[in-house]
């Protein structure tokens, strides 16, 4: 019984940590791909982006770095 419980506990630890790592990686990948604030790349064609009224200033950095433009005026208070 003692040996059985140890194996189960070991499996529990490994399964918990590996599942957690997979979940965190999945969250990271989705964040990078969807990239709602354009921090990693320019907008993907065909994808709809929601420009939140309360968080407009957080888009500025991403727009500056990734959008194609000739001239840009950015304002933040």
């Amino acid at each position: 019984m003692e040996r059985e419980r140890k194996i189960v506990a070991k499996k529990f630890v490994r399964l918990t940590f590996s599942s957690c790592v997979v979940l965190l990686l999945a969250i990271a990948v989705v964040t990078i791909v969807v990239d709602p604030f354009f921090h990693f790349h320019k907008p993907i064609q065909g994808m709809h982006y929601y420009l939140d009224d309360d968080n407009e200033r957080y888009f500025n950095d991403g727009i500056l770095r990734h959008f194609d433009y000739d001239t840009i005026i950015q304002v933040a208070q």
Partner: protein
Amino acid sequence: MLFNSYIFVLLFLPVSLSVFYGISKKYIDRSIIKNCKVSSDNRTQSSNKSKLLCLISSSLFFYSFQKPWYTLILIVSVLFNYICSWLICKSTKRLWLVLGLAGNILLLFLFKYASFTVSNLQHLVGADLTFPSIVLPLGISFYTFQQIGYLIDVYRCTVNGELVEDSFLEYASFVTFFPQMVAGPIVSRAEFLPQLPKSHRFDYEYFARGIEIFIFGLAKKVLLADVFGTAVDWGFSNIEKMNSTDAIIVMLCYTLQIYFDFSGYSDMAVGLGKMFHLDLPWNFDSPYKSRSITEFWRRWHITLGRFLREYVYIPLGGSRKGNGKTYRNLLIVFVLCGIWHGAAWTFFLWGLIIAILVCLEKAYDKVLNRLPGWLNWFRTFLTLNLLWILFRSPTLGEAWTFCRITLNLSFLKPSPKLYSSFYTAEFYKMFINIPGGFADRFPWLLMFTYLAVGLWIVLGCKNTKAKSEQPFTVRRSIWCAILLAWSIVSFTGVSPFLYFNF
């Protein structure tokens, strides 16, 4: 350093565990290779010293991470108490015990109560007295009480003729062990020190339990307590603007916040202890399921209740010297409990009211036992909710205003600022995108969902202690992984634990 932070979960904890078990493994392997040429006593002593040094240094690093000067006070306190305990062991004179207790109480008074006392004296006698405002060192109430308990236990042992051979390293580990130093549980000498000399080979059973318990505690704090906390902060900053619906909801939110925050911390402490192969006592046992205030204090902050019972209530005579003295002793214990939480009249009154209620329950025990269980539960839960208002309010005046608004029972719609506190990053977008304008028609639905889930967990579910006795399953492992990942991505901003204030 907070348990609910990236640096703790992803860096400090893995490193300190690796070093701790690395040291243990080194001494176990070395003894196997040498085929017992090193005597077991020498091996154990060397292994122990290294392990204890590892625990102490990681604990001091943890403690000093944000404010290094707190560590100086801690070190002075540890040295002072160890010297007192050494003197007690040498001569068994009560003088050294009294000196030790006086030193601890003076330290606590200086940092916690001096300013409050001086300002009240100023109002009372009209004198122009000032006392510099001193920042309360983190965990001082907890580690001071723990050391007071240690001194009394050592004195009792020496009076009974028992040998006390706690080394300085063992004592320092006992006081500074980082999972419990800052906000409890208040551990006793008898339950911690005998665990230290054991050989701490890595044990998957202990480690798995520790992880499971730690994750449950972390989730309680990050996913629940902090959400309710946003609503509570709004409520107590806008007492006059609330209607009675808001006040009742904020009252419930605080009831849930303080439980999830403190029990979450305690669970994390127990879980971390198990990861180091050390058993710490449980501090909570489903307190909101209690059917009396007396029962509540056997389930809430169990180690503080135990401390007050062992070192205050029983030495005063307990319940052995007639009803009058029993009520007096209960009054002293609960007023002390109240003011232990902080230097304010709200805490004093909170403790006093609890004392009166406990005395009344004792006096009318037979009558109350005849009532249906649900009615006893309801009156207890309602009383606790109202008392938490007093506990949380900055002043007596605000507490009174809050209670008055709560009991107004006008039942208007909840304020937008209140229900929008529950528009968390995880659920807000999903909620507003429900088709049919659902969020516009029922904007408070997310708030009531959180309240319902919170109440279901505290009243309907098994607590962490009960869950930790169940066997490991794949489903539980996946659930723990989800909670851990969810908690880690929720580590935004700084959200210290409520009991750090005490």
